[in-house]
């Protein structure tokens, strides 16, 4: 067993950074569930609901993307 401890720490750190995606996943699920329920009750409003749903998903997803960027920076830039 031999290896580079810095490399190991980078890989573990990148993995840990992605834990933040949990919140975004739950958030996107909640947004979509609400939007689908609303579309089911009021199919005429589908267009408006869809636009707002995509906006909400984009905001919730941004957090996961920050985690992803941090993980990518750790993997490919640092050190």
């Amino acid at each position: 067993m031999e290896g580079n401890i810095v490399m190991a720490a980078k890989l573990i750190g990148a993995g840990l950074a992605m834990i933040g995606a949990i919140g975004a996943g739950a958030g996107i699920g909640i947004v979509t569930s609400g939007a689908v329920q609303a579309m089911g009750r009021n199919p005429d409003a589908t267009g408006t609901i869809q636009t707002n749903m995509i906006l909400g998903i984009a905001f919730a997803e941004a957090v996961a993307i920050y985690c992803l960027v941090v993980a990518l920076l750790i993997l490919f830039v640092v050190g």
Partner: protein
Amino acid sequence: MTKTTDVTPKKKGWRWGTNRWIVLGLIILGLFLLTDFFGAGLNIKPIRPFVQLPAEHWSEHPLFSTSFLGIGDFYLTNTLVALFIVMVLVIGLAFWFNRAVQNAFKKNDLALKGIPGALEALLEGLFNMTQATAGKWAWTIFPWFAAITLTVLLANWMELIPGVDSIGVIEEAHGTGYAVQPLTAGIATIAMPEVAEHGSHLIPYVRVVSTDLNFTVALAIIAVVAVQVIGVQAQGIGYFTKFWNVKTFFSKPIFGVIDWGVGLLELVSEFSKILSFAFRLFGNIFAGSVLLFVMGSLLGSIVIMPSIFYMLEFFVGAIQALVFGLLTMTFMAQATQGHGEHEEAH
């Protein structure tokens, strides 16, 4: 599907019969290249490409060096080349669309066909969205929305073109690399096995422009500055009371101070908009590119598998382009509405 009752019969219909054979031929070609194929195949194993965050340079020497704005050495990078390609495509599409519309007016047949027709449908959808959100300011906001969406859409979809990210110069790697296999005169490829020293990796000629933070940050700054400009156009200098709100500072005892603090938070949120715009696009597309590389190297031998991820990236690219434009449009629409004018607007 509703156009089946067209009067003129189409000479060349949808080429289902031909396209099917082309797809089958490509699958067999893939099997021949990537697997043993009953002893006849070339059995080239796909490799995991070298992943690098900053864009690679085309040349050793910078194009020019200047101390203006602290630019320093200016290199021609492979993402910049992709940006030029995207710009040429967007301008070309604009001219094509313009000519198609003028021809349609001449022939008095206003239904556009082909790619101009698809572009018209896209722009109409975007305009309806703008009008539903921004009302009378739709004509000011729509050009920004459409330009950003089209540019980012074409930039994102470039990662689906074969050859982007995979044709380039072979350079010696610093760490582990791959062995070089000459194919024909002047053309070589890198393939397995992995070698620890004196290996090579590939520097592509063209890399998707959205995987360069410079592009996404620049686009985000343009979008956020344009939001402020449209806010000033709509409300005059009073727009800035959103950030420095001292109207109620002395008249209301405690809430005046809170209003002022909220204004400062609005200022911070403008800067965080730049960050979230830039990192959302960059993170999605860079991760998508890496996903395509890794899935190509892991599942490349199962020929159909990577195409599923290409479809995923097709949707991700479209959605990210739409989200970038849609958020710009929403922020602009918000900037045109002041705090106290909600009543007179409706």
